[in-house]
Every structure is written in structure tokens, then in C-alpha cells.
């Protein structure tokens, strides 16, 4: 054999070797990619990481269990992307996940990113379950692929507004929102419910999801002498806002939505966290079936407490895998109809979707900070909870 054939032979050998291993793998194991998108950098990175952790736990559990679909053993693989909580980046990330051939997406974290990304998943027929986007608009765009596993802001804003007026006796209410799809949407629902219950909105001010100084708007709010201040936004702003409310001697009760109900908020607000109100879709973690166990496992694995939506991410993955198993296929087109009609006992709730993809009978729980801890006050709704 002349020397110049050797590389050719080598290449042929290599090729055949590749081909062999690929077919081997294909015959006994199927790799299914599940996409996840959340802000992993920027001011909300702690919440994004929390979502990723919850998703990762569910995928690791599924792999440990050894699930077979369509007669083949399935290995789930997490493809986690950073959307920076930015709507523009979210659409790029969504397209990237689609190009990576994911079978489904858990995400995004923010409503502002979930809403534009939903169109891309819908165009490509990929089921999307958001574990945390609460804005009503997300599931009302007419996309068959959009689902969420917690109550939306219509339910949450309503619960907050009614509680503020009926239980806390608020008459003059001031509202601040961060102008994101989430903050604005929640504030609008809150205002609707509070005015319907008989309170007056004396001031509506705005900030951004990157600010840390709110003294100017808080001073403007103080001039209107409200007895309750509602903030539609996240913990990173809510924490310093609570401090500044105290520093300016603004004597009003302070209330937030789910974006503020985190351990991070209490850490950031310090002493000023005392007596602050916030809500969270779903029942309290201790009351969830297996919630305490989940919380313990999470803390062992990631060495930090659950911030907010990790259990919902865990459920979102599991309900997606359950639909795949039931449909006996990981093909999005095949398991999507099954997902829409599924009944799944998760840790956060009994998951069933309505025609829009919203959670049926989602509960909302109100909390208050007492002695440096979020204490549940009252759970509203949630007939379908186990």
C-alpha cells in the first residue's frame, strides 16, 4: 500500500467508528433536551439561578428514575440560557433554544421576557411552561403552546387589592410600579380591585427595575399622605424602598406582590422589613405535599434557601415529562395535546390547565414579615390544591 492511502484509511476508520457509536446510542438511549431561560446575570440573577436550580433538580431526578418513552430509555439534558431579564435578549435566547432542538421550555422568569418569547415557541410548536410569569397577557395571546403553573396577576392583584381594603382598612392608597410587564400589570389589577372595594388611589408613581434610589418618588408619595403603599416590582427594588420609606418617615403600610416575597427582600430591607405585606401564588411551602422535603433537598444540594419559584420550576419540568410519558412521545407535536389536558399531582398544586394554559383554580397566599420571616396570613382560592 502506498503511503498516501494511509490518511484516507484512517479517515474511513474514524468515520465508521463514529457511525457505530451514534447508532449504538440511538438504539438504547434517547437524549431529550429541555430548555430553560431566566436572567442569570444582572439585578435579578439570584432569582434566575433559583429557577435554574429548581429545573435542574427535576431533570436530575428524572434521569435518576430512568424513564422510558416509546420503548427507549430517555436521558434528559438541561439547556440553560441567560435572558438578562431583557425582552430583546429573551427573543434571541428563545430562537437559540429552538435551534438547539429542545423538546420543551421551562421559562422565562419575568413576564416581560416570557410574553415576546412565547411567540417564537408558538411559531415552532414548542411547549413552554413558565414557572413564574404572572402577567395575564402571557396566556392570552392565543398561543396553544403557552402554559403556566401558578395563579396569574388577575387573581393575585385581586387578592392583594381586596385584602388591602377589607382586611387592612386602607382608604388612601399610593401605587408605585417598575414599568415592566409584570409590575405594571400587577399594579393595574391591584388598582382595579382596590378601587372596586372602595379605596381611593391618591398617587401613582413609577420607577425602573434597575433603580436603587426612590427618595424622590417616595417624597412625592408622602405629600399625598396615603395609608398604604403598593409596589409592583421585584425584591431588589422593594428592599431598599422599604428602608427609604422608613428613613423618610412615610407612615403607610407597605405591600408587594410575589416579586417581593423572597428571603432576599428581608435581607435587603433589614429592620424595615418588619410588618411588610406580600403575596405569592400557590399555598405556603410548608403546606405543599412534600414541600418541606423539597426545601430540605434544595438546601442540601445548592447550599442556599429557596428564593421564590424553584418548586414551581420543579413541577413545570415534571408535568412536561409526565405529558411525554402519557403521550409516549417526546415529539412536541405529539405530547402538546396531552399536556393541555393533563392532571398532575405536583408539589405546588394539582396541576390542570384551562383553555388559555392558565392553572385551574390557582391559589394566592398573603404573607407578612414577622420577626424576620415571611409568615402566611391567609390563602385565597385554590380549590384544586391537593
Amino acid at each position, binding site marked *: 500500500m502506498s503511503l498516501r492511502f494511509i490518511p484516507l484509511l484512517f479517515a474511513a476508520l474514524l468515520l465508521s467508528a463514529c457511525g457505530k457509536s451514534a447508532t449504538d446510542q440511538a438504539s438504547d438511549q434517547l437524549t431529550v433536551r429541555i430548555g430553560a431561560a431566566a436572567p442569570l446575570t444582572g439585578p435579578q440573577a439570584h432569582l434566575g439561578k433559583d429557577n435554574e436550580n429548581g429545573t435542574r433538580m427535576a431533570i436530575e431526578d428524572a434521569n435518576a428514575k430512568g424513564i422510558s418513552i416509546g420503548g427507549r430509555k430517555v436521558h434528559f439534558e438541561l439547556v440553560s440560557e441567560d435572558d438578562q431579564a431583557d425582552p430583546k435578549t429573551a427573543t434571541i435566547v428563545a430562537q437559540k433554544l429552538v435551534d438547539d432542538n429542545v423538546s420543551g421550555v421551562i421559562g422565562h422568569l419575568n413576564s416581560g421576557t416570557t410574553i415576546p418569547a412565547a411567540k417564537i415557541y408558538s411559531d415552532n410548536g414548542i411547549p413552554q411552561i413558565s414557572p413564574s410569569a404572572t402577567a395575564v397577557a402571557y396566556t392570552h395571546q392565543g398561543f396553544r403552546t403557552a402554559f403556566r403553573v401558578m395563579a396569574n396577576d388577575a387573581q393575585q392583584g385581586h387578592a392583594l387589592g381586596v385584602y388591602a381594603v377589607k382586611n387592612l382598612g386602607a382608604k388612601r392608597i399610593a401605587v408605585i410600579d417598575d414599568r415592566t410587564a409584570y409590575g405594571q400589570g400587577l399594579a393595574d389589577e391591584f388598582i382595579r380591585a382596590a378601587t372596586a372595594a372602595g379605596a381611593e388611589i391618591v398617587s401613582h408613581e413609577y420607577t425602573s427595575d434597575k433603580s436603587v434610589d426612590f427618595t*424622590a418618588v417616595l*417624597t412625592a408619595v408622602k405629600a399625598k399622605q396615603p395609608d398604604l403603599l403598593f409596589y409592583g416590582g421585584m425584591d431588589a427594588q422593594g428592599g431598599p424602598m422599604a428602608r427609604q420609606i422608613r*428613613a423618610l418617615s412615610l407612615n403607610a403600610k407597605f405591600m408587594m406582590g410575589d416579586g417581593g416575597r423572597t428571603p*432576599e427582600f428581608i435581607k435587603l430591607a433589614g429592620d424595615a422589613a418588619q410588618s411588610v405585606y406580600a403575596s405569592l401564588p400557590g399555598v405556603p411551602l410548608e403546606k405543599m405535599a412534600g414541600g418541606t422535603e423539597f426545601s430540605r433537598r434544595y438546601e442540601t444540594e445548592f447550599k442556599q434557601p429557596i428564593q421564590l419559584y424553584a418548586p414551581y420550576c420543579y413541577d413545570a419540568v415534571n408535568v412536561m415529562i409526565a405529558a411525554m410519558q402519557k403521550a409516549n412521545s417526546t415529539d412536541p407535536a405529539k405530547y402538546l395535546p396531552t399536556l393541555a389536558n393533563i392532571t398532575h399531582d405536583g408539589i405546588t398544586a394539582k396541576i390542570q390547565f384551562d383553555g388559555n394554559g392558565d392553572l385551574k383554580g390557582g391559589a394566592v397566599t398573603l404573607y407578612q414579615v414577622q420577626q424576620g420571616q415571611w409568615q402566611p396570613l391567609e390563602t385565597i382560592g385554590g380549590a384544586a390544591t391537593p
Partner: protein
Amino acid sequence: MEIFLQQIINGVVQGSVYALVALGYTMVYGILGLINFAHGEVVMMGAMISLSALTALIGMGLSPLLALPLSLVLAIAVCMLLGYGIERIAYRPLRHAPRLAPLITAIGVSIVLQNLAMMIWGRDYHSFPQLFVNQAHQMGGAIINDIQLFIVIAAVCVMAGLMFVVHRTRLGRAMRAVAENQHAAQLMGVNVNRVVSITFMIGSALAALAGMMVSANYGLAHYYMGFLLGLKAFTAAVLGGIGNLRGAMLGGLLLGLIESLGAGYIGDITGGFMGSQYQDVFAFMVLIAVLLFRPSGLLGERLAERA
């Protein structure tokens, strides 16, 4: 009236922070004609380091009165070293390159520092320990607390000190000479590299001070906090006339006041048509207007004085 006074106080406190950070931008620009976009990240590093040092020192059982200045000194020292390193690695090799090149490395350094901080301190917010009671003072119905008072006083002192250094000392003369003409200064026996290094170190020391004060005032530190602050301070420097020390101070205070008065009154003035979401729009509109009529900023760039 007391609401108006409160808004003025809010603006002056916020403006003093902007001014302190803006001084760092303006000093470097004055001497090198370079916009050091990594400056905001040095502020963040200052906040993070002082916070870590403070937590460690308190943990060792030191009294807060001793731990606070000690951690500030440590943060300043580390930031000075950082400023020196940034200049040495990212800017000095490019000093005679086209102006775009150091601008790109500046952005690069900023990204590197941000990610470095994310790796060291994580993605979580770090809360600043409440060591002693932050006494609130009544001033004609408006409220100012100890930390805010300290911020304003520190900014004024730093400004006065800097003016003294630049105009009354040998180092200041060297700085002004380098600003005017690097080559001529070198020929006259000024060690240009040394002057530039010292300028970066002074700027970084101010950044560390600003970082610690910001995190004490808002009660938090986060690896991302330098970005917006840097942007605002840069705006303040341009507003006052970049390269001009007094301009940085004026621009900072003005920006702070415009923001707080704008956010506080725009809703009432326009009858609810425009709300406080236009806070930033307001500030940038003023900037555009100033640049249209005075392209070199409010106080302009007086060559002999820049540094």
C-alpha cells in the same frame, strides 16, 4: 414647602454620589483624553471589598467604630491597586493607539470586573450591616440622616482636597503639565507614566469611597451596581464639562437635583399626563440641551485647569 425641601435634600445627596464618581471619569479624561468606562466597576469593587472586610472584621470581634474606617482603608488600598493594574494592563500599551482602541479595552475591563465580582461574591445581593443607629435629623420639616450627611460632607471635602492637590502641589503641576502636552511635559522632566498611574489611583480611591457610601446608604451591594451608577456619573461629568473638576461636581449635583425635582413634580406640573417614569428622560433631555448649546459642557474644558 417641606416636601420641596425634602426633594432638594434628596437631590443633593444623590448628586454628591454622582459627583464623587464623576470626578474619577473627569480626572482620567483630563489627563489622557480617555473615557475610563471601567470606573463604575471600580466603584462596585470598592463597595464589595469594604463590605466583605467589614463583615470579616466584625466577625473577629472588632468594634464597629474601628472596623468601619479600617475596611474603608482596605477597600481604598485594593481599589488603588486595581486602578493601577487596569491602567498598566489595558490602557498604557495603547496610549498611542487610535482613540477607539482604549475605549474598547475599557469596556472589556468593565465586563471582566463584573464577571470576576459575580464569581467571587455570587449573584446574590449583599446587605450592608446596620452597625449603629442611623440618626435622622429634622431640618425645617425635611429629614436627612447621618449617612446622607456624611456623603455630602465627604463629597465637599474630597472636592476641596482635590482642588488643593491639582493647583497647589508639585504633583498637581505635573498633572496639569501632562494634561496640556504629554511630550512637552516629558521633555521637561515629568515622569508621565508615574503621573498617569497616580491619577488612576486617586480616581480609584474616590471610587472606593463612593462605593462604600452608596452601599451604606442603600443598604446593599451587588456585582451589577456599578453599571447604572457609572452611566449616570459619566453623564454628570459630560454635563459639567468633562475634564473639568468643578464641572464634575456641578454636573453631579445638577443631575441629582434634576432627577429628584423632575420625578417629584413632573406629574403635578403636567396634570398626570407625564409621570415619574420620565425621570431619566428628563435628565437626559437636559444633557442634550446643554450639549447642543455648549458642546463642551456647562463649565467647558479649560485646558490650563483640567486634570
